[in-house]
């Protein structure tokens, strides 16, 4: 299957960030078409019919999400989640740096659909170029009457605020993002109430990923039927696959959903010379590994879920036969340990515990018993945590142990007493004393 560029159609054109060029390439025709001639309810209906699923990772139906917003409340918000921090993910960055107006157009459509008059783009703070590009694009759009009061003479008004985050993985979780946007620590909120009912500043809020909102533009331009025909049933549309790791040409590749893993890897240039495919994380790091036997699997939401992995953000992290899975597991768990917000017990304590065990195995002090403990603790961590962070932290490590157990055992066999249980180091005496008189 060849690449099918819809969202990335104009990504290579250097002047696409300019509003005139975006317009020249067919830009802002969707808003012209929709406002005011399509009612917000009809617009939601079109998106529902298109079967568009959220591209942020969970794959929830976008139209259905919009439908949850209560109609009778005056103030509503749209938040565009551009906190792209899943390991291996770099599609949103491409979209905002190369084609910012596509996102703005998507935001206008979504805000119009839910009748929000303020939209926020919560961008990852490190996207300096993207933030500058977006800010300029928002300014230009406002100058051209695409934003601001009474857009195209309708009663609909919209302001977009670009907000840089402060560097926390958890701020990509929608309720944590709302907390962060309000100026609090980025920690997830209790659900219910769901953001669609009570979100930012307690008002109904829809949080959509950058890629999702960009898709809306094309759904409106070409109609729901056209969109449904792309990809597979219930998995319609294209998806930007971000291939990284041990591969010839890492980068973004847009395919219809359901493309096989092999086709994605081949398009990305295949494996490095003399190397063989060993495994990959198909949707960012927070999912189970796919191995060589899965090379022909269809890359879509439902197939990968049935495989007990996930499409996630479609960030394919490729590992060839030189990859050391113990080191991979250790490194990834370190990431989750450092990015756990610390709010709930299982995630805060469990991720650190796992890092400690994996470090010990890697340094040759592991026991066979450790592997059992990792699986047990990961299970209870994922089952009882407050938000999905810990749910995502368990499978990359557990699947690595399951698929490549021999590699772990090889490390454990470095231990002169691999069957003997290690003994806890006593945590006393205190490292330093503090002068309490001060």
């Amino acid at each position, binding site marked *: 299957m060849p690449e099918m560029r819809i969202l990335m159609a104009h990504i290579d054109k250097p002047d696409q960030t300019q509003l005139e060029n975006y317009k020249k390439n067919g830009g802002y025709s969707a808003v012209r078409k929709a406002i005011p001639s399509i009612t917000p309810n009809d617009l939601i209906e079109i998106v529902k019919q298109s079967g568009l699923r959220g591209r942020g990772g969970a794959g929830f139906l976008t139209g259905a999400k919009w439908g949850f917003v209560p109609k009778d409340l005056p103030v509503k918000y749209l938040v565009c989640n551009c906190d792209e921090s899943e390991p291996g993910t770099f599609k949103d960055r491409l979209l905002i740096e190369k084609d910012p107006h596509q996102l703005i157009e998507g935001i206008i459509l979504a805000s119009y659909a839910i009748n929000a008059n303020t939209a926020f783009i919560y961008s990852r703070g490190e996207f300096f170029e993207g933030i500058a590009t977006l800010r300029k694009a928002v300014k230009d759009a406002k100058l051209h009457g695409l934003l601001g009061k009474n857009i195209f003479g309708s009663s609909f008004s919209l302001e977009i605020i670009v907000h840089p985050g402060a560097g*926390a993985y*958890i701020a990509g979780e929608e309720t944590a993002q709302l907390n962060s946007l309000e100026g609090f*620590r980025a920690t997830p909120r*209790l659900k219910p109430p769901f953001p669609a009912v009570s979100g930012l500043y307690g008002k109904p809020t829809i949080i959509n990923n950058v890629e999702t909102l960009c898709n809306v533009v094309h759904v409106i331009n070409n109609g729901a039927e056209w969109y449904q025909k792309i990809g597979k049933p219930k998995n319609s549309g294209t998806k930007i696959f971000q291939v990284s790791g041990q591969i010839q040409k890492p980068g973004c590749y847009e395919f219809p959903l359901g493309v096989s893993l092999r086709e994605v890897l081949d398009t990305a240039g295949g494996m490095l010379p003399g190397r063989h495919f060993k495994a990959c994380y198909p949707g960012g790091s927070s999912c189970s590994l796919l191995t060589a036997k899965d090379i022909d699997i269809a890359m879509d939401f439902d197939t990968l879920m049935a495989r007990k992995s996930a499409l996630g953000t479609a960030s394919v992290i490729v590992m060839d036969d030189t990859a050391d899975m113990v080191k991979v597991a250790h490194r990834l768990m370190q990431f989750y*340990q*450092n*990015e*756990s*917000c*610390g*709010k*709930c*017990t*299982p995630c*805060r*304590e*469990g*991720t*650190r*515990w796992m890092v*400690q*065990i994996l470090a*010990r195995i890697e340094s040759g002090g592991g026991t066979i018993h450790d592997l059992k*403990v990792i699986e*047990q*603790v990961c299970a*209870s*961590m994922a*089952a*009882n*945590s*407050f938000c999905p962070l810990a749910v995502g932290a368990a499978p990359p490590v557990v699947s690595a142990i399951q698929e490549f157990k021999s590699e772990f055992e090889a490390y454990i066999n470095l231990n002169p007493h691999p069957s003997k*249980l*290690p*003994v*806890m*180091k006593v*945590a*006393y005496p*205190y*490292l*330093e004393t*503090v002068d*309490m008189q*001060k």
Partner: protein
Amino acid sequence: MQMNMINLTIDGKAVQVPKGTTVYTAIRKLGIDVPIFCYQDRMPPFGACRVCLVEVEKMPKLQTSCTLEATEGMIVKTNSNPAVEGRKEILEFLLINHPLDCPICDRGGECPLQDQTLRHGPGESRFVEEKRHFKKPIPLGPVLALDRERCIICARCTRFGDHVAGDHALEFIDRGFKTEVGTPDGGPAESKFIGNTIMICPVGALTSRVYRFRARPWDNLSTNSTCTLCPVGCSLILDSRDGEIMRTRSQENREVNDIWLCDKGWFGYEFSSNNQRLLQPHIRREGKGSLEPTTWDEALNYLSQKIKEAKPHGKLAGLGGNPLTFEENFLFQKLMREGAGVNHIDHRIGGSLLSAEEEGLPSGMEITIGECEQLSYAVLFGLDLTEEFPIIWLRLKQAINRGAKVLFLGHFAPEISAYLKEIILHAPGDELQTLQKQLPYIKDIASQGKKGAFFVGRQYLNNQNRAAILFELQKMQESNTDLSLNIMEGRGNSIGARLAGMRPDKGYRGEKIELPGFNALQILENSAKGGWDFLYVVGANPAKKYPTKLWQKARANTKFMVVQDLFLTETAHEADLVLPTLSFIEKSGTFINIEGRFQALLPGRAIPETLLSDADIFIQIAKRLDLEIARFNVDMREYQIGSRLKWDRPSKIESKALPLDVRNAESLRATFAIALFDHGVRMQHNPRTVQLAKEPKVRLHVVEATKHSIFDGDIVQLTTKEGAIQAKVKVDNKVALGTIVIPLGFPELPAHELGTCLVNGLEIEIKKEQA
């Protein structure tokens, strides 16, 4: 009612709860024990610790019962294998980095983590790695110590600052396993309520630096008593071991302090064990030489002899009463009125001395403190709530959390400003005009709300126009039955002292006195002018409440002065006889709080053998004067509603406005502010709590400061017609123009030198002191 009830089944037992109840509350209703850490019933559910897991039918995962709302027909299992195992795993997680130093931990023996691990936890841990290390303990201010290794990040303390106290004193720092509790700016915790975080901490992470390592909870003997350090009169528990007071704790009282205390209540007890406390009577024989220890017999004989000698001339007076119990005040006034035959008695030392007629309405609250939570609006007229009645703020904050609107009118914005709907500032003396100007606005707020309250504080009460202001407010109240008028004025048990008759013009329960005596100021002025025979000072320090000139003259012309106090105060130094007495920690009796509630005091520690209570001293003296006064039991049932007094307020008061002189553009008008943590006699003898007091500074607006080329931190000279003092300046834009805020209660800033009667609106000349 039935419509709003939910039926659910927990462990096979049916239970009915109101709609909106959490599953955890329903579980507790059945008496089933499920561990819990982050949830605290005075704060909204949080769901972070995950330890209260239960199994719910039709739900794929275990659910945290504290966050789950009960729904009709729900089937909950707390004792199923997955639920029990889930809770065990969470407890294992909580313990992997928690040091098992229970034998030396202050919390050991009353620690929720310890107790719940014993009941619900795993017998052994799979954790064999090294535990997390932090430097510990670290001090977070003078009274609070933090052990970060013990902390389980339940967020109770940080959320207390957000939801209950509103001061955000503690915040989380860093994230993940590095998360730790700290203060927003890294300095000491800025709070008046930090002791409560120690109470609600479910482990030994936050500990009291006053109580640290002093006792094990099971060794402590607990006594229910009352805090007398401010007019709120919170219920507290005194814990003692081997006859020594170890700590104070809050005692739940829904009507007054709920489960909270302010830091004065939590830590302000140390003075009672201070080694500078007087333990025996001291006498200065024949008015010469130094104070020497003596026996109680000699002291009391000497004292009654002096009363007998002075009685025929009628130049006797008694001062004090705020730290005494209601009963002791009754005995004191009876001793002075019947034993010494005079009405020259007063408890308002250095306070506002407006006579009963000018007061218009006596102080006291119409609603209970607990009812403050149900208000839908409130107006604070010159009341600095957190400094004077800290616990009432916690109750009012609950109303604000529910959407109540609170307005403030006064001379400077209080520290709770962030929660107020509007702050209207004006210079002292402009109260009446401001009030009249704002009346339509206030009426508008009142018309939107249901239950409302006016709280009138010292900025409006210690004021020439007090009666006129109260007249206006009472007029508004007449047309609105849901509006209460709360007159918030008092120090310690001053309401008890007033009701017991410790004033020259009113007797017990406000009986009319035919020939009123002198008030506190008149007594001193008369002795300074015409000489005096006998002065009895009880629990007061007039030497530091009046201008030194006046006091010294009055003292020199007084033949005999007896001082009854805990410490050798400045006044006691100059006395002819000093009698030691008991502190509120050792007393029994009654405290009448600002809402007129009778709060009982009981001794929380062994009474030192050499000491007598104030009541016993008065009875011993009376015996020697052949006067029959006996221990007195409060029987005021006829005056009470429940456990509170009915205020007998005049239905209509006279409006008397006394216009102030037109203000000189160069001068400022003073407003006198009291602080919760000052350097008063008792606070000075609390080694830890004394550090909570801020450096005393006079405050003024930057515009006024610029006029006089004054900068923050400068030393200025303040001058009135009667005296002058030096003070450090804080430039503070939360102060009204034309106003200078002068703190009371600090020896370093002797405001008492400025005048004999420190009424707000006093004109002050300010000049920068040349360095």
